[in-house]
């Protein structure tokens, strides 16, 4: 730690807007914020309804940390406090003022554990996002691992793991607007309508901020193949395909991991009930838009 900086001296700040949630991340360590995997926009979102603050401090909280400890993924919760990964991360949440105090073992700042710092930050940010949403009535926002593109008045969401072709697909889109190429926001509005929205969680493309909601035409589950084909999916198959592609729908203080699992699955089943879902085999050229055009008719 920088000897000139006192513990609890959160002089460095990062503002991260995700949908309607504005996350203010404060830390005594500048290099922590510069390594945040999702780059921020500094402006306030015009649709912000929830502000959440995370104060991150560093200490030597456990005598020895191994990669195995960090990847153990164990989580302990007691009242408003939580402890992850065998104590590597500890903290508390004040739900009355939407603030979390987090202590991360300072060894995670070291170069040999740098990749875990990003994992830790990613997990913390996304859990804080869902924690913030818990206090907002009737908000059912979901983050999906995928790209969202509007074209001819429709919004298409393409979901898939890293390497499935999301960025390639965006590159092949000439006549369309890319909302996001890595993490697409999805939200249910009135009358059982799902829309996509921009998030600052970008991949290869840096797109302008866009806080409008884009009604979904459909969700396409991407797989690379030698030929482009699109198949309509049954609701059950779509819900099962969607489940691993939703990001961290659990909150910081969930005592009940079973409820987290159930809530996550209910999000999936509700979405596929109202949105057409397709399996898309993708040849890595722009022929897929011709196939989708046939669906539109």
């Amino acid at each position: 730690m920088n000897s000139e900086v006192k513990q609890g001296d959160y002089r460095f700040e990062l503002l991260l807007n995700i949908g309607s949630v504005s996350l203010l991340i404060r830390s005594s360590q500048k290099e922590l914020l510069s390594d945040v995997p999702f780059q921020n926009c500094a402006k306030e979102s015009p649709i912000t309804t929830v502000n959440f603050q995370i104060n991150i401090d560093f200490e030597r909280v456990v005598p020895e940390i191994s990669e195995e400890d960090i990847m153990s993924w164990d989580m302990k919760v007691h009242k408003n406090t939580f402890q992850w990964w065998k104590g590597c991360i500890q903290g508390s949440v004040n739900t009355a003022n939407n603030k979390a105090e987090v202590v991360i073992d300072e060894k995670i700042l070291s170069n040999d554990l740098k990749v875990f710092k990003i994992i830790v930050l990613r997990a913390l940010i996304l859990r804080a996002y869902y924690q913030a949403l818990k206090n907002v009535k009737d908000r059912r926002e979901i983050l999906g691992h995928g790209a969202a593109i509007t074209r001819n008045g429709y919004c298409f969401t393409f979901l898939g793991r890293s390497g499935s072709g999301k960025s390639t697909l965006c590159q092949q889109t000439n006549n369309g607007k890319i909302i996001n190429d890595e993490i697409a926001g999805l939200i249910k509005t009135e009358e059982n309508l799902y829309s996509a929205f921009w998030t600052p969680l970008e991949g290869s493309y840096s797109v302008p901020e866009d806080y409008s909601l884009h009604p979904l035409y459909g969700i396409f589950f991407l797989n690379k193949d030698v030929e482009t084909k699109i198949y309509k999916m049954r609701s059950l198959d779509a819900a099962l395909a969607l489940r691993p592609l939703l990001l961290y729908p659990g909150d910081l203080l969930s005592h009940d991991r079973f409820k987290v699992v159930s809530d996550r699955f209910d999000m999936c089943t509700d979405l596929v009930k109202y949105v057409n879902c397709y399996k898309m085999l993708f040849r890595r050229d722009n022929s897929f838009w011709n196939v989708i055009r046939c669906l539109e008719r």
Partner: protein
Amino acid sequence: MLQQCIFQNNNLSSRIIDSEVVILTKDGYLHVLNKIASLIWENADGKTKVSEIIEKICQEYEVDQETAKQDAIGFIRDLKIKNLVTIA
């Protein structure tokens, strides 16, 4: 077993999607049941005997008694091993 009833265990929940049952367990696993398995699951109410469940399978799916019996008992034993049901 034929005169016994089966009970869904408390440590899980289920959903019906596209006429198929999906069971969610406490440790995060999903079990997807086909239509016949879903029928067995829906009759795991603690009141319907296994013999009655087999009869329903025969009527619904035009399967002979012996085949339905072997399949149903095998499936119920599998559910028991996975701690999804209790047999009493």
